[in-house]
C-alpha cells in the first residue's frame, strides 16, 4: 500500500486574528502556524497502517512551518516528505490544492490518500471529496478507525448520536480522517533531531482546474454585541462577578 498524507499548516487559534488590509482575508504575517489537528490524526492513521501492514507513507505539507512538521512526520515514520510551495500569506484553499494533491497521488502511485476531515480554513471538509472526485476514487469522511482488510480496508465512520458505521472499501480510496485509531504518538526531541537531516522534497502548485464560481467579498471578525460583558482575567474578581450575576438573575442563591 502506498499512502499519501496531507498536512496543512493553519493559524494558531491562540493568536490574535486581525483582518488584512483589503478586508478579504486574515493578516497572516504576525500569526503562528501549527499543524491542523485532524491532519495530525491522518498522519497517525497512515503510520499505524504502515506498522500494521507494511505500507509506504509519503507526507505532503503545505504552509508556513511545513519543513518543521515534515521532520516530525519523518521522525514518526513517514518514508518520504514533500513541501508543497504555495504563495506566502495566502489561505490554503482546498479548491486550490486538490489538483496538486491528486497529481502527487498519481505520481507516487498512491492507492490511499489520507487527510484531516476538515481544518479551520476548510470547515466544510471539502478537500477529501475534491481529491476523490479529481481521481475518481471512492471517498469516506469522518473516519475514526481504519484497518487493513485483505486487499482493501475496513473503515469506521462516525455518525450522529454515537452511531458508527463500518465499510469494507476497495483501494484506491480517499479518506477524511476525524480521529486516528490511536491518539497521535509523541515523538522525542532526540528523534526529531535525527530526523532534521531527512531530505525534504519540493513540489509546486498545479493549476486548480476548477472554474472560479464565487469570490470572497468581505471577511468579518466576530463583533462584541451588547449582551456580553468582559469580566476581565483576575480569577477572584471574575468568580465574585459571576456569583453576583447568577444571583441577580435568580439562577443561584448565595
Amino acid at each position: 500500500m502506498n499512502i499519501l498524507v496531507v498536512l496543512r499548516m493553519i493559524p494558531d487559534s491562540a493568536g490574535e486574528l486581525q483582518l488584512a488590509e483589503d478586508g478579504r482575508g486574515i493578516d497572516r504575517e504576525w500569526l503562528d502556524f501549527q499543524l491542523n489537528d485532524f491532519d495530525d490524526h491522518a498522519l497517525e492513521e497512515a503510520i499505524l497502517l504502515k506498522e500494521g501492514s507494511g505500507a509506504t507513507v509519503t507526507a505532503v505539507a503545505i504552509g508556513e512551518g511545513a519543513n518543521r512538521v515534515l521532520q516530525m512526520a519523518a521522525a514518526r515514520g513517514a518514508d518520504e516528505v514533500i513541501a508543497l510551495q504555495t504563495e506566502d500569506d495566502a489561505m490554503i484553499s482546498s479548491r486550490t490544492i486538490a489538483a496538486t494533491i491528486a497529481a502527487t497521488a498519481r505520481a507516487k502511485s498512491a492507492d490511499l490518500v489520507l487527510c484531516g476531515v476538515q481544518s479551520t480554513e476548510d470547515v466544510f471538509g471539502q478537500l477529501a471529496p475534491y481529491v476523490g472526485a479529481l481521481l475518481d476514487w471512492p471517498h469516506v469522511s469522518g473516519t475514526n478507525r481504519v484497518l487493513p482488510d485483505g486487499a482493501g480496508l475496513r473503515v469506521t465512520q462516525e455518525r450522529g448520536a454515537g452511531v458508527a458505521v463500518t465499510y469494507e472499501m476497495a483501494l484506491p480510496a480517499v479518506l477524511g480522517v476525524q480521529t486516528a485509531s490511536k491518539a497521535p504518538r509523541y515523538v522525542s526531541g532526540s528523534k526529531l533531531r535525527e530526523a532534521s537531516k531527512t531530505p525534504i522534497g519540493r513540489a509546486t502548485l498545479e493549476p486548480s482546474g476548477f472554474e472560479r464560481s464565487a469570490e470572497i467579498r468581505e471577511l468579518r471578525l466576530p463583533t462584541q454585541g451588547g449582551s456580553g460583558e468582559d469580566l476581565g482575567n483576575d480569577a477572584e474578581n471574575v468568580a465574585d462577578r459571576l456569583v453576583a450575576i447568577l444571583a441577580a438573575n435568580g439562577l443561584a442563591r448565595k
Partner: protein
Amino acid sequence: MTGWRARHYVSALANAPKVARFDQPLRRLEGVATAIGLHRKMLRKPLAGVLHAIIFISFFVLFTATIEAFGSRLFPGFSLALVGGETWIAGLQDFFAVLMLIGVGLALYQRYVLRPARFKGSSGSDAAIIYVLIVLIVGSLLFEAAARILGGADGSWRPVASWLAGLLGRIGVPAQETQEICYWLHVGAILAFLVYIPGSKHRHMFLAAPNIYFRNLEPRGAAPAVPRDRENPGVDKLAEFDWKQQLDLLSCTECGRCQAVCPAYAAGLPLSPKMLITDMRDALAAGPSALPLVGGVISEATLWACTTCRACMEECPVEIEHLPKIIDMRRHLVDEGRVSPGLQDALSNLTRLGNSMGKPSKMRARWTRELGFPVKDARSEPVDVLWFVGDYASYDPRVQEITRKVAELLNAAGVDFGILFDAERNSGNDVRRAGEEGLFETLAQSNIDAIGECTFNRIMTTDPHSLNALKNDYRHFGAAFEVLHYTALLAELIQAGKLDLAPVDGGKVTYHDPCYLGRYNGGFDAPRDLIRAAGYTLHDMPRCRENSFCCGAGGGRIWQSDDGVAERPSENRIREALSLGDIDYFVVACPKDKVMYTAAIDALGVADKLKVLDIAELLVPRPTRDTAPEAAGVDII
C-alpha cells in the same frame, strides 16, 4: 564461598559502562570520613544513629577477638598477648561485647516495638538473621572467655566474663568442654555470617565506604548527560547503567530513610525510592531475565511518580543516586513515545512554542504592559541584570502580579535590568528531568543563543527551576553564566542599602523552601533574611531547609494528572503549616508554589486561616522622591 556468592556482582560491575569517579581523592576521603566516622547523616535519626554507631564501633573492637580466634588455631602460637591481648584489649573486648548486645537490644526495640514506617518493604529476615548471628557471635565470645576463666585463666581484665564464669561455676559445667563448644560456635557463626553477607543487605559493611567514596561530586543541580557512547538516550537494561549506578544497588541498606521523605510515596503513588533500588538490585542478582527493566522490573507509573525533589538522595547515608536512574529510565520511555497525555501536551507545546502552556511567544512579555514603566529589551541594549522570567511567571495570571511586583522592586532599587521578550524559551529544567533530553537540548541551545546576543553582567531568575537549569545544566553546553535567584538579588540590594524597605509590624509567617532553590542550590538564607527585613516573624515548619517537603510539581509532575494520588503533597504541606498554629501567611519563592499551594488551600477549604504570598509581595519599598515609580506610563511592545 563468600567470593563465589558475590561473583555475579563482580562480573556485572566489571562489564558495566565506565564513569569517571576517581578524581579528587582527598575530597572523596573527607566525605567518607564524615559519613562513616562521624555518622553525619545517620545521626539525623538519633536512636537509629546511636545504635548503629554502637554496633559499628563494637564490631571493630570485637574484630580483635575474631583475629585471635582464627589466628590462634591456624597458626599455633599466634597471640595478641604481646600487644595487650590479655590486658587492655581483653578489657575492651569485654566492655564492647556488652555494648554490642545493648546496641542489638536497641535495634530490636526500634524494629519490633517502635516499628518505623520506613522499614515497610525492607527484608525482615535479613534484619532478624543478623540479630541472631550477632548475639551468637558475641554470646559465644563471652562464654568462651568465661569458660577459660573458670578453667583458671586470669579474669582481672574481663569483669563481665568473670561474672559469667561465676555463674558457670555455680551451674557446674566442665570448663574445658564449654570453652571448646563456645569457640566452635563463635567461629562457626562468624563463618556463617561471612558466607551470608553477599546475598544480604549487610553487603553494605563492605560497600558503603566505596559507594560514598565514589559519590557524584558534580553540582547537585546538573542532571547527568547522556554518555556519548550510549546508543539510545535512555536505559532499558540494568547492564546499561554505569558501574557506580550498579554499585548503588548493591550498597542499599534498606534503612528506608529515602522512603520516609519521598513526597510521591507519601502521596500514595507507587514509588518508594527504597523499593526502586531493591527491586533493581534483586533483578541484578537474579541475572538476565525476560522481564524488561522499564515497564517490567520498574513500572512506568513508578517512574512518572517522581518529582525529582532530591530528598531521597539528600537523606541516603550511603550516597545512593536515585534520580539519575529514574531520569535515564524516563529517557527510554520518552524516546519510545510512552508518555501520559498531559505530558505529551506539555512537551508538544514546548516543542512547538517554547512554553508548556501553548501560548504564543509574542504574548510572553505581555505582563509588562500593565507596569508603570518600560522594561528594557536586553537584546537591543546592554543591561546590568538580565532577567530570565520563566513560563509561569510570564504567562500564568496568578503569578504575573508577582512578576510585576518583582519588576517594581528592581525599579525602586534602581537596578538596570532587561528581559529577552519573545526570545525566551522554557529553561528546560523539568523537560530534562522528565527524560526529554533532545527537547531539553533544543530549548537550552535556543536560550543560550538568545542570551549570547545580549550584553549583561548577571542573570536573575524568578523560577528556581530556571535558576537550576541556567546555572548547572547549561554548563553541559559550555555556557557558564553567573545566575542568581531574585531572592538573592533583593537580599543583596537591601544589604547594600539600595532597596529601602518600609518594614511593617507583620505577623507570624512560615516559609516553604523550594526544592530547586534550597536543596539543589543552597538558597536557604536569602529568603529568610528578606522575610525578616520586611518585618515578619518567621516560624519554620518541622520539615525545612534541606529537609523541605516538595510541593509535588517538579520533574514534570505539574504536567501530569493526579490519578492515584491519595493526598497531594501540597495539601500535606499546608497541613504541616496549619499545625504550627497562628500563622498568617504561607510564604513561597517559586511561581509554581504560588499555583500549587493556592490550589491546595482552596481544596482544603482553609482560605480563611492561611494565605499564600510570594516573598516579593511582603516587600514594600519606602516611598521616596528619588525612587517613586515614574508616573508616565510608556506603552511597550
